[in-house]
């Protein structure tokens, strides 16, 4: 297997599984983290990721097919998805689609936990990755945390893309309805106002 990318969380290798192109995602130990802490985090996130990739599919969100999971090595072997990273290929239409995906997850009480443009692949359909920080919750606040994160990404990394966040929220509302989308937005504002040095308006 060949190291394709050293991500923040894991090393990505490209190889084969049963004759098909596949990806091995290994959460290798982080040298700066205390061993006990490191081992817990890696194992926990690997198990979460694999199970939420399946849960996402049931919620209607495309995610790679899982072939094999090894919690001890913190490794997941999954289907290779052809396509471009949305971080580098972002368009207003993709923002709309990302919003739809977020709403579908939330409808099943799945909080992605790391909803950022680099975790989406623009393939034939949009594919969502990296469920390591995902969890179940019915709380609006937790859903709003997902939305606040992608808003932060839009206003930092993608500041040049006009209307990225409004398009995202249109997509969100098209699934969740205007009422829920509005309540989520209010909650996002609340979280932002708790932030450091935010002007309270």
């Amino acid at each position, binding site marked *: 297997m060949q190291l394709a990318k*050293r991500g*923040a969380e894991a090393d990505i290798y490209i190889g084969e599984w049963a004759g098909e192109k596949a990806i091995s995602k290994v959460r290798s130990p982080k040298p700066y983290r*205390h061993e006990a802490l490191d081992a817990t985090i890696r194992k926990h996130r690997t198990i979460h990721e694999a199970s939420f990739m399946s849960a996402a599919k049931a919620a209607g969100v495309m995610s790679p097919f899982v072939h094999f999971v090894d919690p001890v090595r913190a490794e997941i072997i999954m289907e290779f998805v052809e396509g471009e990273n949305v971080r580098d290929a972002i368009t207003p239409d993709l923002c709309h689609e990302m919003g739809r995906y977020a709403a579908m997850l939330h409808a099943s009480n799945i909080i992605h936990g790391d909803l*950022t443009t680099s975790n989406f692949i623009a393939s034939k359909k949009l594919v969502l990755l990296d469920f390591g920080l995902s969890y179940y919750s019915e709380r609006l606040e937790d859903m709003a*945390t997902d939305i606040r994160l992608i808003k932060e990404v839009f206003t*930092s990394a993608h500041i040049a893309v006009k209307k990225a966040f409004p398009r995202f929220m249109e997509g969100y509302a098209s699934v969740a309805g205007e009422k829920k989308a509005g309540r989520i937005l209010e909650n996002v504002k609340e*979280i932002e106002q708790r932030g450091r040095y935010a002007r309270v308006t």
Partner: protein
Amino acid sequence: MLCLGVESTAHTFGCSIVDSKGKVLSDERDVYKAPEGSGIHPREASRHHMEVSSDVLKQSLASAGVSIKDIDIAGYSAGPGLGPCLRVGAVVARTVAGFYKKPLVPVNHALGHVELGAMLTGASDPLVLLVSGGHTMMLAFSHGRWRVFGETLDITVGQLLDQFGRSLGFASPCGGRIEQLASLSQGQYLQLPYIIKGNDVSFSGLLTAAVRLASEQSHADVCYSLQETAFAMLAEAVERALSFTSKKEMMIVGGVAANKRLVQMLEAACDRQSAKLFACPIRFAGDNGAQIAWTALQEYVATKKRVGIKESFVHQSWRLDTVDVSWRP
């Protein structure tokens, strides 16, 4: 061209004179010391600043070997920070600007940290980790502003250390004492909450858990575990932001940059992402007048923007990502 910078956002009252080449001609400061077990009382700190202000100003002129008439610009820290403290610095700068007819330039304190750090370290396009009592933010420059790529959702890492330290009876700032105590631990890691929310971190739950743990465990082990947990969260957040932005430079500034364990962890994180770490020199990592002087000077040279005495302001809340930085390429 010479610029006077007056800093007074929190516990430090500082005056510094910087020239247009970025040479720091003087950097004088006097730091308010809180009583044991307590934090910075805004009223007491501002009284301290008031009392030392004229001496610090005089001293900064003397050590730079210049007269107040040689100063071309008066910059002051206009926020974010503690209102009563900010007002002292603003009054000093207004007085100099008004009496000697110099342009008055308000500076965002956080921008000062970042710009001085970049100048001193020579980092050209870094991902910045700003860690202090007031800030915990990851920033990168894009389209005319420092944009936030990740930050704390509640308290800062400086507040985490200070509030935990105060619960043990130390006086703010407590980072040094905690680092010292942690070094006495045998490396016994006690489980504490590790909260990463995408690119962001949250420390409030960690604080509550650590304070509770300190009542039943050895303080050295709790300090050690607190540092290991909080700094690993920051290192992971930095790694995520480096990976996302593909930046090859990383810079750390702010008071908490003085912590050796944090810098060590960031080195390892940068190493994994093939990025070069630039650490702001310890002396200029914490609050100082030079960060204000250098930023005011750059801004004034580039934009000729100044404020009248009547229009001059302080803002207790003033986010860095709302400040236009037109002079940076």
